[in-house]
């Protein structure tokens, strides 16, 4: 299966300038999918997650159009041809939304 990641501008220095990163892997959850992203670009991990493995409070991760905060967090299941977008929160984020 192919997982497509959309990378925000401030993190392009970690991906050699690539906005879109594709990974071929068999994964069931967002957490497993992101592990593939860290494998390709290890520096991204600590920018998107805290050292305790939680999504940073002002970063949103979407599967398709849905924020994983509403769908089970990193355990959110993903299907074939998933698209995962990493988007900095614009709200200033009370409650992380």
């Amino acid at each position, binding site marked *: 299966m192919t997982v497509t990641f959309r990378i925000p501008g401030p993190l392009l220095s970690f991906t050699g300038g690539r906005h879109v990163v594709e990974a071929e892997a068999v994964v069931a959850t967002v957490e497993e999918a992101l592990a593939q992203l860290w494998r390709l670009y290890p520096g991204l991990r600590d920018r998107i997650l805290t*050292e305790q493995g939680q999504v940073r409070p002002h970063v949103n991760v979407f599967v398709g159009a849905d924020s994983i905060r509403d769908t089970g967090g990193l355990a959110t299941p993903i299907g074939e041809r998933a698209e995962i977008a990493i988007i*900095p929160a614009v709200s200033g984020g009370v409650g992380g939304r």
Partner: protein
Amino acid sequence: MVATRNVTPKDGDALVMVGTMKGAFLFRSNASRARWERGGPYFPGSAVYAMAYDGRAGRQRLWAAPESFHFGAVMRSSDDFGKTWSEEEAGAIRFPEDTGASMKRVWQIAPARAEEPDVLYAGVEPAALFESHDGGKKWSLVRGLWDHPHRPQWQPGGGGMCLHTVLLDPGRRERIHVAISTAGVYRTDDGGRSWRTAHKGVRAQFLPNKHPEFGQCVHKIARHPSRPDRLYLQNHWGLYRTDDAGDSWKDVANGVPSDFGFAMAVHPHDPDTAYIVPLESDEFRCTPEGRLRVYRTRDAGQSWQPLTRGLPQKDALETVLRDALATDGFEKAGVYFGTRSGKLFASRDSGTSWTRITDGLPPVVCVKTATVAKGRGRAK
């Protein structure tokens, strides 16, 4: 995006590092310190609360801790005065998994003594001390402080739960003072294994018990290397001096318009001379009467005199934050401070007169100085 300008300091030049809410800047001058050239912004858009210069072992290394609101803080270093910086992945400061904590902000980067040229300390939020023994490649948590029984009861101040100041004793290698808001001053005499409070006599004006065991909101401590047991302290209300390394503190708020403030620095050659920038109150954190005055003592706090020459004395509602005042090491001492309104002032006569180096910077959160010594190639 704004273009980043670079500077090329030479041997003997003065360097002023300025961290702001939206990037870092470098100001370079020759030893006369009459005209300043500006480099930056570095890390535009990122808050830079901590900067340092490491000139030990032939290095000419800048440190900065740029912090993205979204993506966290990283440690960056430069061996060419900001033209290039280390990779963002390098030298990360990370809390160990068992702590359950995650690093929010680096408040202080402190290269250790010249005799231990590969040792650095970092003070962070949530309040913790990290150390590196390989020049900043790897960092580890100082467990002795993290495991202190007081720590679970420390409360964040207005700036967050931060360990904002690290002072290394120049003579006693095992002694370190740290200041934490709001916890107080803690001291180790065994290289970080055990810590005890060192703020006896410092009042907690804002608590029902004015002399609690801990909980003092210390905004800054400063010391002169030639007299390591003397420290000055700017508290959240209160101005103090100790002559016994923090075992006891004496109120020295003599003749100041307010004993509230953040910033504090000591003269490079005279342990009796220190500088502060009083603010009106914790409710109105601006210079009293709209006058931007640095206060200087030359008698270890027995009296303080306002320094106003060259500083605005009308409609100047300014704020100088805890790490935004510094002195340099030149024979005719330089004193520097930056304001939340983005102005940078300098004195090259120990504070007697001042000039404005620049304005229009983002809010200034840290000011550090260095004298550039000839580099000896790249140390590790």
